[in-house]
């Protein structure tokens, strides 16, 4: 065993508890708008991002909290963003669907399904041209793989051997639409072949498996051998967005996936297989709770943006556009 596993555990617990917490806050009316939660998919973000360096790039989606946290965006900055505060990752201009922090390589999340994929290819292209050894990861859902943008980016990335990972989180649903209603194929990974790219299917609820596959893909990418499509089979344990009653799927199915919970099972594995001391896990849990309390306090205490902030950040000051308002 090693610190790695504990770190993975911590990342997953942080994501899970972050999501549960913001869901509660949302129910209490303390968070405006809508939320797409990542509950159940934590092993993907944790497994992939643990294979990355701080200066690698991550592009995420309408469901971005997990990826952002796993890549090192501060919980309190995300929390503040969800609260719509001036101290948020986007100064309150982005919101839940656009959290990110370019200082740790996370682009503002892109809520257009499939829209982040060509941009991730662009980030990877920059790494290739600048020879800075970085890789770019595009996270996307099963639904995104039917967008034209996805196809164009897959092809050019394979063609130019761009240093990137295409990480598909196949959680079996795109909003209410089951996988089978959108695909005539058994796995999305199979599509990699259409571009001359390797494609792998991995148990997206097994953080170590995800990590291993991602690690290999990252090595391939850094070695100039090109991109990999990784399909992580997982399940969103929560609704698609706020107030989704999930009546388009069965409780049996939900219960089944509950038994495959990535955190519960990994905790068990740590305790039973790696003989990790339960106390140390409890310490992790407590650390997470403390961090979240701090994040909420921070977000709460932070000021709202001033109405005037509306007008800034459209153009870069060095080249301010000067449009009439």
């Amino acid at each position: 065993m090693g610190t790695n596993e504990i770190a993975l555990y911590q990342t997953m617990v942080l994501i899970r508890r972050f999501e549960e917490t913001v869901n509660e806050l949302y129910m209490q009316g303390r968070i405006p708008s809508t939320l797409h939660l990542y509950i159940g998919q934590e092993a993907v973000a944790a497994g992939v991002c643990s294979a990355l360096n701080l200066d690698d790039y991550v592009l995420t989606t309408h469901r971005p909290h997990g990826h952002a946290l796993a890549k090192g965006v501060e919980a309190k900055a995300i929390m503040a963003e969800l609260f719509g505060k001036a101290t948020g990752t986007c100064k309150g201009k982005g919101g839940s669907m656009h959290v990110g922090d370019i200082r740790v390589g996370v682009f503002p999340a892109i809520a257009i399904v499939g829209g982040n994929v060509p941009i991730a290819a662009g980030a990877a292209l920059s790494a290739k041209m600048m020879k800075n050894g970085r890789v770019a990861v595009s996270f996307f859902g099963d639904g995104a793989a039917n967008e034209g943008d996805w196809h164009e980016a897959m092809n050019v990335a394979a063609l130019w051997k761009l240093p990137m990972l295409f990480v598909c989180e196949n959680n079996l649903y795109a909003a209410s639409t089951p996988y089978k209603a959108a695909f005539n194929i058994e796995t999305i990974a199979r599509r990699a072949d259409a571009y001359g790219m390797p494609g792998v299917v991995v148990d997206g609820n097994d953080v170590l498996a995800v990590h291993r596959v991602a690690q290999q893909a990252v090595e391939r990418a850094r070695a100039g051998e090109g991109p990999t499509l990784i399909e992580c089979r997982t399940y969103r344990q929560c609704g698609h967005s706020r107030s989704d009653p999930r009546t388009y799927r069965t409780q049996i199915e939900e219960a089944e996936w509950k038994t495959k919970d990535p955190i519960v099972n990994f905790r068990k594995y740590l305790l039973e297989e790696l003989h990790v001391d339960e106390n140390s896990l409890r310490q992790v849990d407590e650390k997470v709770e403390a961090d979240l309390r701090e994040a909420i306090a921070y977000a709460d205490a932070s000021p709202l943006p001033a109405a005037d902030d509306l007008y800034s950040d459209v153009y870069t000051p060095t080249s301010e556009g000067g449009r009439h308002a």
Partner: protein
Amino acid sequence: MPKMSIAEAIRQGIREEMRRDARVFCLGEDIGIQGGFGGAFTVTLGLSEEFGHERILDTPISEAAIAGLAIGSAVCGMRPIADVQYGDFLFEMMDQLANQAAKLRYMSGGTLSVPMVMRAPVGATGRGSQHAQSLEAFFTHVPGLKVVCPATAYDAKGLLKAAVRDDDPVLIFEHKLLYGSKGARSEKGALSPIGEVPDEDYIVPIGVGAVRRTGKDVTIVANLLMLYRSLAAAETLAQKGIEAEVIDPRTLVPLDKNLILDSVRKTGRLLIVEEDNLTNGWVAEVAALMADEGFAWLDAPIKRVAAPDVPPPFAPPLERAYVPDEQRIVDAVLSML
């Protein structure tokens, strides 16, 4: 007469058209899944139960394909009603709409028609930059398309039915905050323009605007949510003795130009209100038209109230400052007198 919300009125319109005409069908994302949402704003809820999955087609997340399916099937004799979950996603089918749907008839020398409907919800509702735009102006510039924007339940049903029967592509822009404020998809700040909607068959003709309030001092042209803010502003102004005439264009292409001209002739003052950002919005076209054809009657500069030229922001105080409110409308009118 039964009262209903806009979402219900549209649903009733779709249902009636589908019963009336076997060629009519719906396609879109998450519109007919068993136990699902009925589209992003519940409009198509229950329709797959009545019409089956052969006529309520749940598509993959493929906006260009949705448009292409609508175009091709329309040319070949069907009457598709397609939708996007949020208007912002129309950009993903922009080529299919602006280069194909709009041009096919012309390029063919008038030998075919493209009788399709594309519905798109617009308006800022706290979801940030990519789920908030009001995209009318991107399409009013495209000859070959028609653009409507119903603000009442009566018009929503009547314009939907007119659009389905129209032989050309019609884009329907619906406002998220006007669907109705109750139920699963209630929204902060939502209005509920519950209105009387006849159960029988009727249409609201495309291209005909409506005077929502008469007045002699200033003409206000506003659509969708801005219509309601303008009407509220008109009440406030009335308390100051200023009588605003409020016009709901209902259709942006073809525009009911004469309705606006007649009003401006009477009032001599024109304010146009739009939710999207100012520069080159559809309000610019109305202003330009009136600065030409209505010039003789204008007693004051033509004013526009619109969002500033920034992407839609997320934080509530920012969004409130972004979307034009009653106060801005009142102030604009006062500045013209």
